[in-house]
């Protein structure tokens, strides 16, 4: 049997297949269908300081090989998360990464402090695609701010700190470098790409919020290019996200330089996709005589 484990900073994941934030609820929902401990890890829905009802409907629209969403970080808030959702997550043997977001650095620190009081959390993913209310723009597009959030959160926790980057940016390498320089243990990329769709018969946007985030196979080439660029810019582990639907897609990301991957939209298409893909990955490693999945990571031949 090939070794499937991978290291993300000090965190050892049993395997490189994780469930992406916002596409796996709080873990318990999919536990009705299969044993989620099979996964390398679960990233929770983004948790914010206050409970958020999210955006008005419609929140979803299908596009060619993708979907648009404007969920608006609907979540139970930190208090309910700790009381209602964390107990189940804590009971799991798989790694649990809590994704957090805020409108200020203070929000991030508040959330980390609250979560640090509790057991059962293996790392934090920082959702930097949330708009910084003061500056008006995403944290994830300002290297100074992104770096600062990482630096400050690192001071509050010894656990893995994993900023998650937005693709809606001119040069992903700049942000990747900024978060690495400030102590990030790894980088997750990418979040959704800004998109829009119009219902021609009503002349209205299909999403209540007009614009939303594009995800699914359509964005896979974009995500892969960003992993490639980030791989050249930084040394810390990368977690590849974007349109993964099959073992072939996972291999594309690993070969390009990701240490692990997250499956997002495909959980909606086929909720068992992550465990089916994991089985195929195991078979691939066996058939191709890999001792460890780590050997694949960054094995891209460019000349």
């Amino acid at each position: 049997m090939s070794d499937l484990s991978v290291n993300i900073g000090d965190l050892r994941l049993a395997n490189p297949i994780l469930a992406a934030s916002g596409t796996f609820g709080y873990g318990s929902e999919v536990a009705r269908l299969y044993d989620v401990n099979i996964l390398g890890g679960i990233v929770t829905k983004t948790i914010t300081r206050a409970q958020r009802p999210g955006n008005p409907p419609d929140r979803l629209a299908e596009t060619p090989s993708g979907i648009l969403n404007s969920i608006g970080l609907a979540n139970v808030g930190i208090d309910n998360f700790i009381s209602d959702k964390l107990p189940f997550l804590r009971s799991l043997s798989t790694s649990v990464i809590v994704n957090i977001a805020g409108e200020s650095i203070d929000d991030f620190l508040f959330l980390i402090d609250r979560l640090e009081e509790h057991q059962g959390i293996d790392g934090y993913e920082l959702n930097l695609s949330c708009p910084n209310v003061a500056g008006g723009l995403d944290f994830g597009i300002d290297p100074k701010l992104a770096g600062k959030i990482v630096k400050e959160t690192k001071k509050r926790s010894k656990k893995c700190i994993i900023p998650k980057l937005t693709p809606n940016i001119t040069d992903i390498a700049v942000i990747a470098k900024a978060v690495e320089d400030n102590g990030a243990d790894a980088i997750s990329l990418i979040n959704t790409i800004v998109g829009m769709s119009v219902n021609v018969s009503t002349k209205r946007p299909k999403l209540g919020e007009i614009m939303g985030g594009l995800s699914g196979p359509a964005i896979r080439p974009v995500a892969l290019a960003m992993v490639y660029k980030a791989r050249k810019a930084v040394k810390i582990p990368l977690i590849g996200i974007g349109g993964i639907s099959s073992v072939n897609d996972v291999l594309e990301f690993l070969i390009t330089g990701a240490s692990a991957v997250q499956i997002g939209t495909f959980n909606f298409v086929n909720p068992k996709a992550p465990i089916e893909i994991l089985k195929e990955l195991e078979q691939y490693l066996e058939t191709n005589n890999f001792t460890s999945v780590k050997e694949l990571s960054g094995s891209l031949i460019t000349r």
Partner: protein
Amino acid sequence: MNVSHPLFQRSCTLLKSTQLSSKTYQQEYVFPELAKISKPGQFVQIRVSAEYSPLLPRPFSILNVNANQGTLTVLFKIFGEATEILSRKLEGETVEILGPLGNTFELNRIKKLFLVAGGVGIPPIYYLLQTIDMPRYDISLFLGAATKDDLFLREEFNNMDIEKSFSTDDGSYGTKTLITVPLEDALKRGFSSSKACILSCGPMPMLAEVQRLAQKYKVEAQLSVETIMACGIGICQGCVVPLHGNTKDAKKYTLVCVDGPIYSRDELIL
């Protein structure tokens, strides 16, 4: 949401596909696990193709199950790509189905049923009628659709020994009126408020009117709504409808796939 509620996903063979009208199909699939436990009002998610287009599975109400033969039947109208592909499936082909999903109607203490269904809202009402002991209830059925073709299963309903009223927008079958007109007539005629309930399923404007009438005539109601869905199991937060009782700082929403599709009279802003 009840996490322990059993849920199944599997590849299901199409046993029988029947074209009911130019755009309507009834299909029976093998799904024994589901057939044993599903309840009226629940639905399934069907992934019609292994390709990326359409990417998402589509929700369909359960029309009926046969627990002995282990089958599930759905009825659907061709709207767009997914339903078009589904309609072309041949007997013996398989599709991935996830279910049972959502909640069910509550008939505790109810004696008088006003069943109001429109278009693709007809299946859950049909399923309900298959599972209850009809003679124990006083049932008035109101079926509406754009045109005769969309008044699915009208023969089956005609054969039932209950009070019924059909209407179509174009008058091609039954009365040319909105179904809520005969409903209001019936409500005017009176009923025992404590034991009556309207169960309704159909397009949003119809449900909004049913809600208004139920409030006006002070009768309980259970309304089954449809929204655009991605996951069907509460993990995407996409399928929301606004709830009444909003706080001043933020609207509240409910997830139709797990907390619905059936809501009591006053819960939703329709």
